[in-house]
């Protein structure tokens, strides 16, 4: 009798009992989640899932593709910035290494300095160095890298110096062509990375690619420092001179580390030259 009642009761609530048993089994599965045997089973199903993906997985998903595209764009930008930083570091490293060898190349003492600021695009281009009079920098000192001439110190304070770059409206430099030795005056004509070399007679052979160096006829800069390279030559029949286009050896925009040569024009020579100019005007 009792057994019959129990059977009836179980039949009545069997759905709940089954539910309870299955929920308990689910909880047991949750507890067994990290067990080694089950890991083998899940690994096996993952193989099946992988096979399914490889079998049917060739369908393009426009939303996922767009997201992937955006992600790749972002990644690309990040990588590009990283490459720029690495390139800058490499260039800086190269410049520093070259500067350490400068002493062997230049018969002058020099003061290593870093460009901390640039004012460009106003036809009067200057660079600010992190070295000043306290470091021995004086007005008129040439500023170079191992590649060539950058400019000269225009003004100086205790800890900073302003360099008048070659790409400056007021700069005129006495230069010579490397092969012929013909001397002329180099001036910036207002276009970035372009100079004009004046007063080279058309009787002198000039070729594109020839180097332009500082001349010894002026004491303003030490002689034979590379300034630029000839890239185009035009004849000016009326004047008997060439119009020579020169590109600078140093794109100063990418520079950071430079050297200030401890060279100042000789006061006695400068005085004589000033007197000569005075006489010429009279």
């Amino acid at each position: 009798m009792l057994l019959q009642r129990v059977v009836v009761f179980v039949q009545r609530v069997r759905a709940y009992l089954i539910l309870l048993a299955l929920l308990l089994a689910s909880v047991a599965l949750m507890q067994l989640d990290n067990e080694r045997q089950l890991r083998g089973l899940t690994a096996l199903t993952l193989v099946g899932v992988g096979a399914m993906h490889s079998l049917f997985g060739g369908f393009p998903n426009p939303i996922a593709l767009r997201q992937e595209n955006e992600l790749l764009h972002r990644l690309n930008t990040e990588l590009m910035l990283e490459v720029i930083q690495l390139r800058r570091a490499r260039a800086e490293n190269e410049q520093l290494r070259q500067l350490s060898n400068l002493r062997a190349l230049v018969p002058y003492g020099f003061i290593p300095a870093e460009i901390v600021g640039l004012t460009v695009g106003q036809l009067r281009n200057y660079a600010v160095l992190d070295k000043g009079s306290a470091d021995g920098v004086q007005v008129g000192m040439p500023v170079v890298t191992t590649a060539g001439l950058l400019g000269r110190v225009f003004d100086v304070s205790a800890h900073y110096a302003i360099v008048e770059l070659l790409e400056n409206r007021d700069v005129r430099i006495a230069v010579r062509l490397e092969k012929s030795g013909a001397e002329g005056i180099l001036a910036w004509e207002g276009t970035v990375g372009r100079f004009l070399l004046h007063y080279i007679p058309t009787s002198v052979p000039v070729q594109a690619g020839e180097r332009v160096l500082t001349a010894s006829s002026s004491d303003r800069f030490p002689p034979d420092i590379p300034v630029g390279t000839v890239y185009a030559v035009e004849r000016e029949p009326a004047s008997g001179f060439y119009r020579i286009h020169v590109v600078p050896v140093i794109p100063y925009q990418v520079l950071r580390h430079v050297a200030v040569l401890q060279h100042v024009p000789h006061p006695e020579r400068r005085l004589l030259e000033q007197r000569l100019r005075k006489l010429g005007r009279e």
Partner: protein
Amino acid sequence: MAPSLLPGVQVWLRLVGYSLAAFCCTVLHIVFLPLVAVAGIVPDLLLLLVFWIALREGQIAGTLAGFAIGVLMDLVLPGALGLSAFAKTLAGFVVGFFAPVGNDDLRMMSIGKLLSVVALGSGVHNVVYFALFVHPMDVNPVEFVLKYAGASTGYTLVVATLLVLGLQLWWRRRVISER
């Protein structure tokens, strides 16, 4: 009370049919549903299969199907084992409670009632699932459950609506052709 399990060969045939349907739904779930995922949420086709079984075969069959399909899902989809089984067992039981009894047929159920049952079952499933899912996470559980359970229930309901409408249409055509 819900009808008991079908005897004999018919039971086995139905079992094979449901197994095949589960396999197809699993393939769809794994391979094709990610294509229609919205913010990582996909409609739960296997849950709809559980509801179908529960409404056709009754509460016990629905509960058992919920467990079996849940375990299948736990195995093939990344996540904690037993989680889906737990939620789907409960959902199968809840939906099975509304299965037609006696001479009543599933076809007699109105679309509104059918969708309400699906919404209830889906809601129960998703709340339980995401509540258990969020447990080890360092997020606001209420916000998480409401957000994901709501979204998942809504998306599943949209698919269920389409399926129910399609089914109704098919049933009507069948009745007309029989006449």
